[in-house]
């Protein structure tokens, strides 16, 4: 298995609070991704990174920001959480464009 960890694995928070999810990899892969999974929608891309400090928006980026200050860490921030952001969040990595992406175990976030 690819060395990907996500923290926290579970979080319950209140509407309006900031939340940061962390993805950590030990594979030295260049590309990192954040997805959310919701019933009926599969996985949808939020943001991705193609190098340190290089990021771009995905399909559902509104309300989210990301940062990548070093190769191994990719942070996802919800500046002011809303109930619509209740979801399961997955981080993924890949070593080359076009290669398969390997997923972390996920973070279940509940916004009350």
């Amino acid at each position: 298995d690819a060395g990907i960890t996500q923290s926290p694995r579970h979080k319950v928070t209140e509407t309006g609070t900031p939340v940061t999810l962390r993805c950590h990899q030990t594979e030295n892969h260049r590309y990192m991704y954040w997805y959310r999974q919701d019933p009926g929608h599969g996985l949808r891309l939020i943001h991705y990174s193609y190098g340190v400090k290089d990021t771009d928006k995905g399909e559902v980026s509104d309300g989210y920001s990301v940062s990548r200050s070093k190769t191994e860490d990719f942070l996802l921030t919800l500046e002011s959480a809303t109930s619509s952001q209740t979801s399961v969040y997955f981080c993924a990595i890949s070593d080359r464009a076009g290669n398969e992406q390997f997923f972390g175990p996920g973070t279940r976030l509940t916004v009350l």
Partner: protein
Amino acid sequence: DQQVKQNSPSLSVQEGRISILNCDYTNSMFDYFLWYKKYPAEGPTFLISISSIKDKNEDGRFTVFLNKSAKHLSLHIVPSQPGDSAVYFCAASNSVSSGSARQLTFGSGTQLTVLP
């Protein structure tokens, strides 16, 4: 509008028989297709992929077929085993300009149940 569709939310098959999972796409720019398997409380795991220059790719019990004219792909599992019970996602991608990072577009998934 979903660009990748899995129209069957669930599928049940008997152990030892063939499982066929289907996926349709609308974006003709997609040139690489993947299948992922997901167990509850775990991340998706890569299963098999196919490039648009091929129409078939096989890996053990798993075969993916691509029909570009119909914009349709399918995953065949033969023989099916109880451990194959999981949610299966198909995904499609095309290259983008920013650092050549591929973006995956996922279908909504099909829950496969293999009955012993």
